[in-house]
């Protein structure tokens, strides 16, 4: 059974990418609907399988690590696979209606979309450092392609900036991999974690490099400059994909590295330093979001801020008691999931609003509530999650992080968490406020199709509901991973 699920999970996106390249946009849309259905089913199946039987390793091509590439299928990975299925399906459905099929280049949307999905699945399941690099490149190049699609000057400019940032990030990551391979002779993360010792300056440098590269790809403050143009200029479904999923991929790898190796290779300074950058991102990103004149720029800078929270994982899991670390991990996971849902909902809704008022500016939104209450409401609900007010997933995440900070005595992160919520409220309410203004002279509104309005609403409701059902979602994360111990023993090379 697992065999089929894994094959389906890895095969479908790649095959669909290849097939849809041969079709035009409309045919590709039909094909992609089918593919999304398959992906959703397979992801759900895998989730159920792991939820009932625990995690496992899957050796690709039948070769166990370290010779071959093994995939690690555990609670966290399947949670993200499922999240990807949900968000990507929503974005795909939205894009199918949103994009203009008469443009010849739109046919390339579907292959890029599917390659992106394949790369994401590869990252969630990856346990091999070099394979993660290739998956990351797959994601990066298809994301750049999606941003550049259409070839308009601003898009190209954003795409180039994005491309250079992610390429540099990948290379720095690869440099770290090179050091680790040089010292430990294996690329399997589990294998390295099994043999790495406490006092290894070279390995610590490798970890530092990898984290730096990944932080650049995740747009951690102050390396975030590339993100807002790319996410702001791209078409809304693409922005939703990029903000919701793509930046999470590199963070996910960084988090995995930290949780496996951080206790031995990290240091207090490093952990607190990364946390401080995250805090800087929360504050600076929110402030910039508050200042943006364009709707999508607000949402994009909000991503910079929300990504900042994720990096609190590093200080909150370093040298703290096991239950506190668990709390922090759960909180960050919830933050990733709820931000993915809320931010994609927000971008899609923003796309609808822009389509409707025919302007990208925030102050053009006055009176839109008469014409597009549904999209506005989705936007608002997603905003509630970003402000981390109850009962949303964002709030649940913040609650757990607050508990973790208080329990570990790192009260300064409490300040960041609370301040971040207030700042988020500032930029979200600025947009609400604009929509309530009634002095708009013209009634020149375009009404997008119903289906475009329903999708962001569904995502926003998911983000909202996540707060209520956080416990069952989180329980999958803590699933047993029986094979882990024995495979680790196989992989480990006795020195």
């Amino acid at each position: 059974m697992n065999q089929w699920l894994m094959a389906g999970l890895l095969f479908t996106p790649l095959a669909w990418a290849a097939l849809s390249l041969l079709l035009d946009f409309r045919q590709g849309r039909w094909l992609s609907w089918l593919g999304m259905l398959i992906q959703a089913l397979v992801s759900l199946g895998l989730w159920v399988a792991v939820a009932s039987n625990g995690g496992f390793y899957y050796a690709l091509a039948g070769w166990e690590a370290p010779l071959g590439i093994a995939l690690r299928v555990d609670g966290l990975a399947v949670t993200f696979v499922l999240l990807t299925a949900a968000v990507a399906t929503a974005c795909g459905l939205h894009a199918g209606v949103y994009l203009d099929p008469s443009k010849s280049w739109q046919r390339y949307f579907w292959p890029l979309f599917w390659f992106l999905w394949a790369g994401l699945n590869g990252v969630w399941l990856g346990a091999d450092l070099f394979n993660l690099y290739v998956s990351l490149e797959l994601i990066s190049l298809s994301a750049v392609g999606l941003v550049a699609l259409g070839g308009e000057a601003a898009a190209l400019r954003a795409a180039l900036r994005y491309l250079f940032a992610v390429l540099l990030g990948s290379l720095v990551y690869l440099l770290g991999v090179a050091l680790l391979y040089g010292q430990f002779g294996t690329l399997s993360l589990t294998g390295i974690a099994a043999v790495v010792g406490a006092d290894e300056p070279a390995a610590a440098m490798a970890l530092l490099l990898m984290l730096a590269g990944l932080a650049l790809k995740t747009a951690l403050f102050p390396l975030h400059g590339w993100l807002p143009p790319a996410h702001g200029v791209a078409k809304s479904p693409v922005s939703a994909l990029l903000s919701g999923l793509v930046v999470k991929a590199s963070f996910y790898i960084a988090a995995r590295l930290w949780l496996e190796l951080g206790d031995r290779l990290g240091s207090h300074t490093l952990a607190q330093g990364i946390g401080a950058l995250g805090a800087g991102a929360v504050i600076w990103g929110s402030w910039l979001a508050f200042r943006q004149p364009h709707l999508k720029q607000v949402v994009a800078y909000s991503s910079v801020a929300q990504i900042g929270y994720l990096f609190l994982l590093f200080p909150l899991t370093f040298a703290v008691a096991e239950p506190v670390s668990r709390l922090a991990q759960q909180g960050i996971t919830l933050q990733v999931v709820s931000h993915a849902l809320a931010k994609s909902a927000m971008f899609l809704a923003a796309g609808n609003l822009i389509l409707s008022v025919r302007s990208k500016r925030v102050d053009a939104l006055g009176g839109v509530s008469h014409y597009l209450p549904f999209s506005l409401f989705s936007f608002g609900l997603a905003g509630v999650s970003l402000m981390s007010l109850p009962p949303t997933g964002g709030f649940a995440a913040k609650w757990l992080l607050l508990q973790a900070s208080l329990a570990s005595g790192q009260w300064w992160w409490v300040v960041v968490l609370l301040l971040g919520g207030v700042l988020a409220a500032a930029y979200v309410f600025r947009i609400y406020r604009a929509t309530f203004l009634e002095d708009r002279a013209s009634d020149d509104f375009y009404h997008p199709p119903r289906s475009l309005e329903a999708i962001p609403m569904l995502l926003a409701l998911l983000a909202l509901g996540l707060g209520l059902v956080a416990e069952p979602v989180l329980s999958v994360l803590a699933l047993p991973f029986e094979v882990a111990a024995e495979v680790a023993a196989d992989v480990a090379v006795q020195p």
Partner: protein
Amino acid sequence: MSPDLLYALAGVVLCGIGLFGFLLLEHLLRRLLAFNLIGSGVFLVLIGLAQHRNGPDPVPQALVLTGIVVAIAATALAVVLIRRYYHLTGHTSLADDGEAQS
């Protein structure tokens, strides 16, 4: 010190030079060159360090082959983007006043 390690150190220096160029050069094509330079440096470190211990090692060699192909894909993509960007705007750098041409 084996020659392999020497090459690895050369790779380190190439990374440093490349990084310097990447950060400071504004012309997009030059940046691309710097990117390729860093890439070569990383590959040298990967191979040099691994072979310093094991002798000729096919695994990192395969990795580098993959890496080279990824790098050429990225380079080619970047060239296409740069050319079109230049065609539309007349700029060859991302700086705002961007007329810094060679």
